[in-house]
């Protein structure tokens, strides 16, 4: 997982290699903060993030209706979970959304970002328009599209093939991909835009002298220079898309049927609608495991050092 990687390299050492060190012997010891500076953050994080994480694992071994106290029931929930074919479906749907979401959002955001870093006419005004989805909350976007997709009174009514888009499994998945793309691409576009602007101009000038075409410049200069941004953006994208919740709740409500249940949504329904909080906690634990596994995959793909520099550099 991310942590182990960072741990090996992240001890505050590296990262300022080029600068000459002061002659330490000649000076009084620099004042350094004590570890107490960490205490407030550690307390917050420990109590409201780390401790709940431990507690959720404990709760997965209990039976609890949400009222009264949880009672330990051993591995009942886990036995049930491993026999529950729906859990596999739900994980499958979640991973599908992650992969397809990444595969559609990344190229679009990258191309738009590189374009926005250029100097075309209208660029400023178009960029401002492209930024607009960022002003809406997730809930607002999900509700807006829910109404736009209404088959009789919404925008979808005007476009034949899309009329029943929320009524079929693939259609509803596509709708979620579309809506989340609509929402998040502007943010990633910004990341790419900022990074593309920082690519040294001399690289392009040199390429021009070599007679490289626009596409070749893009392929051999822009893309490689954006590599770290791709990793940053992808990490944010993937970790974020594992946890789509309100988009599902407000856009498709998990439907049609159970076609768009994701892991967090399944957890919510089992817990707060069916009142099986023990079983829901087991599903939450699965979510943590899946998130960790995905992080591992990212680390594997991007490699140790890149991961470190990415995370530190964010």
């Amino acid at each position, binding site marked *: 997982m991310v942590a182990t990687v960072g741990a090996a390299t992240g001890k505050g050492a590296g990262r300022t290699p080029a600068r000459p060190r002061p002659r330490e012997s000649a000076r009084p010891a620099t004042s350094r903060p004590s570890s107490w500076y960490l205490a407030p953050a550690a307390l917050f994080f420990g109590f409201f993030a780390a401790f709940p994480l431990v507690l959720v694992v404990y709760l997965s071994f209990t039976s609890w*209706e*949400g*009222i009264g106290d949880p009672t330990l029931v051993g591995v009942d929930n886990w036995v049930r979970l491993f026999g529950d074919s729906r859990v596999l479906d739900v994980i499958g749907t979640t991973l599908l959304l992650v992969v397809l979401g990444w595969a559609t959002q990344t190229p679009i955001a990258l191309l738009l970002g590189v374009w926005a870093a250029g100097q075309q006419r209208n660029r400023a005004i178009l960029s401002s328009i492209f930024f607009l989805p960022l002003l809406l909350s997730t809930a607002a976007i999900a509700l807006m599209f829910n109404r736009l997709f*209404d088959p*009789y009174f919404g925008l979808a009514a005007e476009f034949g093939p899309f009329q*029943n888009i929320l009524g079929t499994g693939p259609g509803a998945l596509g709708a979620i991909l579309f809506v989340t793309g609509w929402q998040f691409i502007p943010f990633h576009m910004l990341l790419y835009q900022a990074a593309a602007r920082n690519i040294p101009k001399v690289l392009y000038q040199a390429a021009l002298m070599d007679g490289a075409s626009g596409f070749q410049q893009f392929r051999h200069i822009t893309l490689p220079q954006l590599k770290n941004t791709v990793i940053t953006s992808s990490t944010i994208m993937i970790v974020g898309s594992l946890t789509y919740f309100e988009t599902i709740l407000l856009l498709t409500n998990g439907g*049609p049927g159970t076609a768009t249940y994701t892991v967090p949504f399944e957890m919510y329904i089992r817990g707060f609608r*069916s009142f*099986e909080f023990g079983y829901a906690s087991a599903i939450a634990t699965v979510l943590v495991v899946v998130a960790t596994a995905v992080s591992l995959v990212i680390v594997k793909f991007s490699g140790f050092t890149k991961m470190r520099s990415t995370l530190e550099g964010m």
Partner: protein
Amino acid sequence: MSTLPRRSFLGLVGAGVGAGLLGTSACGTDATGGSGGDSGKMSIWVLQEEAQNVAHRVALDAFNGRSDVTGELVSTSNDGYRDRLHTAMGSTNRPDVFYNWGGGSIRSYAREDLLVDLSPHLSDNPEWKDAFLPSVLDAGMIDGKYYGIPARGMQPIILFHNKAVFADEGIQPPTTWTELLSAVDRFKNNGIIPFALAGGDAWTELVWPEYLVDRIGGPEVFNAIAAGEAGAWGHPAVSQAITMITDLIDRGGFGDKYASVRWEGAGASTLIAQGRAAMHLMGSWEYTNQVTDQPEYAKKDQGFTAFPVVEDGQGDPKAIVGNPTNYFSVSKSSPNVDAAIQFLREEMASDAYIDAWLKAGDVPAVRNLEERMDKANDPAFVKLVYDMVADAPTFQLSWDQAVERNQAQPMLDALAQVFLGKLDAAGFVKANEDAA
């Protein structure tokens, strides 16, 4: 819970489901964990339905004028009400008074001893108790105790139709399943959606099996299911009902886009009001909503009848399904228990309250309503509902409220799959048996 025989609607609740569950009710948790903040205020949880909450405000204004305790309405949208009620009930910040459906919707709270047993208060005030229709009051019983006071109108599921659309076709609303099918074919061929349906929310689909199973097999079929009897879902009436629903879907009975329609977008209600759909099988609240939202249609073209007879069925054609009513229950931990009971005693059967409901189109579950029916906007509708309930041999509580919570969701999921054409009768039965 189970089907409620008319006269002793209630007894069954106590007998069947609640039995055994309540023995341990005293074990519970800190029922004292002081709630709702300051004791001068009393929170009253209701559904967020403007049309209906007008009546609650009438009662509350009257009460607040007299009492030191100020009641406040807290309204939450229907979709999500039970989730939020449950999280609040699990906290120390419980509502003082809250809306519920009786049966499964409060059984776990009764079990944990979170509710005030209203039985002694009702016995002490016979005129209070006698104000309500006994069948409806008793439907709120759990294990022989009253935990809820009827708080609003009775809500049987009614077959609504657009009179103008039927007149155009020159046909009458169906009274038998055969007539229903032929009406469906006819509307479909003429480009009208036979039944409006907000299929994006599975509970709107549940009214179909509720009625069909009752018509085909009588009330015992679901009683057995609600009581958790082994193999109860396997009753042939269930399979037959699902097969009939599938047939209706295949004929285009709901159009082809119903799965995208959400209840809260109110597409279904608008479709029938616009004459793009002919019928809508929905609870009596549909009437109230139309009166508020599309008054012209409600006045002129909104027609209503009972659910058709199924030929060769064993159920009584007068039996109805739906919600007997919504109840107000009182949290034991409330600092305002006395005020809450006073509120329920003085206001829930008051003339002003009843008139407000009648005006909104609701039919309160009180005795001697005949005398006041003329206060209603549409006395014909009030009479229909009142007579429906009065004549019904049984009034089946909506299935999703009647069964335990952990079985309700799988049932709704399986039904949604049926309506999507992905599950047949056998699959539906199996899915429910697996969850039971």
